[in-house]
């Protein structure tokens, strides 16, 4: 705290208090503390200086946005990779497995299948054995399970039907090209 020479007014450094401004100065400390929540992890001047921190914060917000957009796709990609790896352990092919599941109307997503493979390995193995037996009956060539870990599967071909139609995903936000007008509706679509 420093007393000014003539007026003897208290002056607290870096505070929002101003002795003569009726409306108080905006509190800079609060803003900078909130900024530091994002940039405390950075190195050098991006952490120590305010200007560098603001520049970095703008970049960080862009990265956060990119990650949020990519999250959905990357989750699906990783789930598919995990499922095909888990199937490889049980000597089953991904394409055959998925086709059997879709024909038998087992609506399990890749994400859920990956979670089963990791946290409920026996359930996943039973699904694989089920799919293998059906694939064998369908005439696809499959590698049979080891005798030590095989499940006793009794299932008939007749449960397989046409696959259910895929769910339509309506993406959020405006269409890619807004200059294309939507087509005119047919009378039967009214």
């Amino acid at each position, binding site marked *: 705290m420093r007393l000014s020479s003539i007026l003897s007014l208290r002056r607290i450094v870096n505070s929002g208090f101003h002795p003569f401004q009726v409306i108080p100065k905006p509190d800079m400390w609060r803003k900078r503390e909130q900024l530091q929540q994002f940039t*405390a992890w950075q190195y050098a001047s991006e952490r120590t200086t305010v200007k560098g921190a603001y520049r970095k914060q703008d970049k960080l917000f862009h990265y956060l946005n990119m990650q949020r957009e990519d999250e959905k796709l990357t989750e699906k990609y990783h789930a598919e990779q995990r499922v095909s790896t888990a199937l490889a352990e049980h000597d089953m092919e991904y394409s055959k497995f998925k086709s059997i599941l879709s024909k038998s109307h087992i609506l399990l997503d890749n994400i859920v299948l990956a979670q089963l493979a990791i946290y409920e*390995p026996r359930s996943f193995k039973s699904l694989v054995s089920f799919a293998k037996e059906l694939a064998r009956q369908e005439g696809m060539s499959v590698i049979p399970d080891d005798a030590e870990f095989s499940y006793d599967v009794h299932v008939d071909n007749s449960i397989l039907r046409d696959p259910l139609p895929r769910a339509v995903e309506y993406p959020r936000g405006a269409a890619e090209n807004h200059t294309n007008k939507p087509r005119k509706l047919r009378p039967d679509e009214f």
Partner: protein
Amino acid sequence: MPALPRVDRLKPIYTAAKALNFGWRFSDFLKIPNYNGISRYTNQLHRVTFRFCKQSEDSVGVRNFIEERLVEIGKQNPSVVIYAQPVRNTTPTIRAEYGNGRQLQINAKNLSMDDITKDVHLLFSRSGNPVTKLESRQSALVPSIQGQWTPITWLSTAMNTENLPNKNLSTFKSCKTSATEYLQQKNAE
């Protein structure tokens, strides 16, 4: 004078950069306090306080609720302590205190008796945990019931006593017949 800051200015950088000064996350998995409901269920609500005015029109709903429905609710939940506090010149509120120390306050100004019944039922059924957006639609106390996959989950026990390399374990498994197998089959015929 500026308002007193809530965060200590001398905190080291990494703690200042951590979560905000709230005691909760914006999005979180479902949480149960103290494994409530696994073997025994205890109501997490400890105390309910009804603050109301005896004269004003805003507290009509609260007054009616206290007259007609409060006693029955109290009898149904004997573990919960209920206070009715007549206070002059206040907005009527319902304050709830929970086992984890958190408190909730509902502003009951101009609420009808039915609205208050719904709110009170909500208070009685909540644990003190804050309302957060769900991270995932699935939640469980235990990550795995059958046991998480390990590299030895599906490993044959014969491997414990095997001398490697082993011919049987080294066979290449394939759906397609190899050239050797095809010729062997042909010869067999």
